[in-house]
């Protein structure tokens, strides 16, 4: 080879108390290469890139950047060496404009006018048009990501690390992003692309390194490997696709018509004139980019936000004015997205958390007096039926891993024999095996005659389980369509296309 690879990692190991996050991980990224880092949640991808970016110090192992030893003590040193990172969670101030946000992240920001000109120039050169003087609070998720990417590009990086960049984008926005990344690659910039979405990796990446439980378990050329093979490398076992049985779809059980509500939170999205019906045995998938009214829709269905009485009807009965417990008594149950603090109380035990929604339907209270024995039994039943890994029901909810707590939260509702179950992001941050188990539980529930509304940002998940698909976009819901004959493009358009983001020419 004429010149050494850009970055070589060899034998990187990092242990935290009780868990080895990275165990002898090695990989090589060449100049101008798009390298995928593939793995489930908890496989050690984040720890690995944090070591490259100088946020975490490895216990042992070495990194070499263009043939010289590379040991960043902090992100500033990494940036000085030409390494930039776009995080999954944006660190932007809503009240400031784009240029101000970018200036905040710079060591020596140039005068605002020069910076704005630079932002315009770079953003147009890479096909990510962006007005430097717009307020970040008004931008869509895709546009916010552009701010983060341009912030990185202004440093003229040699290696750009991107952590799950497509999780907040519509398919159309993903395509725009990919064009940018390909252009960067053609200019010799290397990209380390972290994802668990296999089709994206096959479309974009030259090489892939697969991590499982902190270990490097394989490398491949994604274009030449099937998604299924990669998935099995990633999960370590043969992947079980949830089984779908043909179901009879019964009469309409939940009917929402003309529903409009303001969001209770300042940065929330109001729901505008929503119509939807769900039948017994049906799974309705609701897609959309985060922040388009998903939380509000769940709250409206769970009873946390009350509406005009006949805007929400259950089995013909107006329930819009009912609170959460009255709806539970009828069989309308919900599992919110935020596990800690919304679906579960972090510092309370699993027994107490079982009581949180289970009191009415499971008979865990009598005349207001709690039956702790029954609550503990219910918690144990959930733990057993949903394979929740925990020493026991006396443990605090926050001591569980995200996936385990999610299984507990979903299990708690599923085991209460709902007539209608509404879930928001049921498998967010959950490993593939647990995600498959949760999806299977939802399918089984529908097969048993319940109606399921699954709100999710994971389109693959929605396509896998839903009968009908609708999308939320700025608080409006598209008309539901049968999921089977939808193309990715159509789904993207239902989700709002590219949200008015322009493509550079």
């Amino acid at each position: 080879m004429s010149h050494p690879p850009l970055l070589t990692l060899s034998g990187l190991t990092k242990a935290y108390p009780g868990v080895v996050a990275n165990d002898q991980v090695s990989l090589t990224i060449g100049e101008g290469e798009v390298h995928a880092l593939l793995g489930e949640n908890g496989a050690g991808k984040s720890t690995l890139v944090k070591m490259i970016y100088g946020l975490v110090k490895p216990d042992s192992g070495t990194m070499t950047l263009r043939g010289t030893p590379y040991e960043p003590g902090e992100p500033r040193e990494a940036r000085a060496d030409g390494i930039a990172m776009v995080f999954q969670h944006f660190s932007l101030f809503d009240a400031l404009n784009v240029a101000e946000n970018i200036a905040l992240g710079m060591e020596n920001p140039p005068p605002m006018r020069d910076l704005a000109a630079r932002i315009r120039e770079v953003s147009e050169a890479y096909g990510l048009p962006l007005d430097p003087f717009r307020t970040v609070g008004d931008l869509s998720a895709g546009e916010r990501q552009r701010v983060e990417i341009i912030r990185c590009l202004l440093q003229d990086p040699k290696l750009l690390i991107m952590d799950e960049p497509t999780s907040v984008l519509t398919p159309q926005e993903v395509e725009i992003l990919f064009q940018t990344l390909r252009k960067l690659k053609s200019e010799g910039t290397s990209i380390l692309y972290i994802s668990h979405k296999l089709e994206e990796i096959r479309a974009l990446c030259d090489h892939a390194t697969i991590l499982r439980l902190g270990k490097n378990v394989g490398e491949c050329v994604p274009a030449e490997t099937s998604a299924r093979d990669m998935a099995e490398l990633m999960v370590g076992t043969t992947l079980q696709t949830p089984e779908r049985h043909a179901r009879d779809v019964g009469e309409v059980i939940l009917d929402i018509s003309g529903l409009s509500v303001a969001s209770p939170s300042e940065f929330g999205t109001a729901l505008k004139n929503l119509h939807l019906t769900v039948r017994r045995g049906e799974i309705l998938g609701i897609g959309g980019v985060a922040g388009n009214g998903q939380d509000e829709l769940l709250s409206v269905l769970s009873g946390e936000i009350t509406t005009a009485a006949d805007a929400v009807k259950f089995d013909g009965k107006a329930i819009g004015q009912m609170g959460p417990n009255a709806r539970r008594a009828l069989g309308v149950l919900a599992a919110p997205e935020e596990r800690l603090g919304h679906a579960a109380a972090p510092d309370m035990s699993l027994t107490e958390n079982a009581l949180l929604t289970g009191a009415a339907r499971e008979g865990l209270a009598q005349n207001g007096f709690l039956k702790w024995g029954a609550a503990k039994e219910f918690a144990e039943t959930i733990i057993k039926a949903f394979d929740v890994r925990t020493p026991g029901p006396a443990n605090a909810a926050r001591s569980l891993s995200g996936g385990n707590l999610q299984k507990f939260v979903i299990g708690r509702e599923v085991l209460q024999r709902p007539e209608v179950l509404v879930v928001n992001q049921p498998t967010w941050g959950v490993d593939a095996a647990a995600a498959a188990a949760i999806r299977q539980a939802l399918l089984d529930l529908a097969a048993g005659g319940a109606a399921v509304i699954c709100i999710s940002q994971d389109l693959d998940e929605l396509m896998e389980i839903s009968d009908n698909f609708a999308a939320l976009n700025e608080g409006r819901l598209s008309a539901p369509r049968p999921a089977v004959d939808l193309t990715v493009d159509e789904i993207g358009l239902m989700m709002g296309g590219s949200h008015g983001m322009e493509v550079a020419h």
Partner: protein
Amino acid sequence: MIRLEKRPQPSRAWSLATPLVAVLATMLFGGVLFAVLGKDPVEAIRTIFWEPLFGEFAFYYRPQLLVKGAPLVLIAIGLSLGFRAGIWNIGAEGQYIIGALTGAGVGLAFYPMEAFYIFPLMVLAGALGGWAWAMIPAILKTRFGTNEILVSLMLVYVAEQLLASMSLGLLKNPEGFGFPGSRNLQQYDSAHNAELIAGTGMHWGVVAALIAVIFAYVLLNRHMLGFQIRLTGEAPRAAKFAGVNPPRLILFCLGISGALAGLAGLFEVAGPAGQVSIDFNVGYGFTAIIVAFLGRLHPVGILLAGGLMALTYIGGDIAQGNLGLPAAAIQVFQGMLLFFLLALDLLTNYRIAIGKPEAA
């Protein structure tokens, strides 16, 4: 470098140990303070903690312990329910005053009639008075979203003015030679909250405090409402999801803390204090906030904390008298106790780690 790491589970051992460690640390640093003031620290600490219980004049001080501890515990129990749910009633002192005024007012209205039902009516009136005073911040909060901390606190000063006005006007003793203050209820049998067993300090207020402790314990541990209170304090969003109605909870928590404070005021005015006077209130309502936190918002803890607080008050008085310690030093000593307790409380949820910080 020393830093704090969040524990995966709250430590049970530490949550039990912190009050003890806090008391020990207070003794240690309080001792240093007393030594700097030129007093023998061992003698001072002994005077504060030992003298009231086992000293030469303990027969006099022990009943005082109940007399001072009961209102503290009664008020603190009520406050702790709200504090658990994140509802901050800072105005128990005002509710205490109003409870004393309404309760004493009912008693005095019957004077000089003697009947068995007068005292129970006074108890009811005292509780209602405190409740009504607490309903002002409660309704303002649920209706208009005002801050209950400010409203309840400011109402204390309104109540104090009302107390002064009553002592000088409506409730003034017509046979009192023009002195401010009401008739002495201790001399009016039907209205007197007398000692149940002479010489012990045990009056109806002590009984009420004990009942309140048991009631709060059962409520918090066995009842849905108590569960909702704890849930609201720990995770308000989860509480809403669980079907808690926040305005109702605010009305309940402020109402019960006001009623208990009002009861404490009535038992005090009809018993140890004896009459409505300008300087009737001595700060029980504020000290009860400290007692509630010192007892870690747990009913049994509050019972113990109320006893401890009463002990430092009485012991502090003795130390002032016998050793010439300044009153300010005693107050600093009591402040230290709260400071150490709250500071050490951190160790229940965090552990101290020594080493280089690192992003997880």
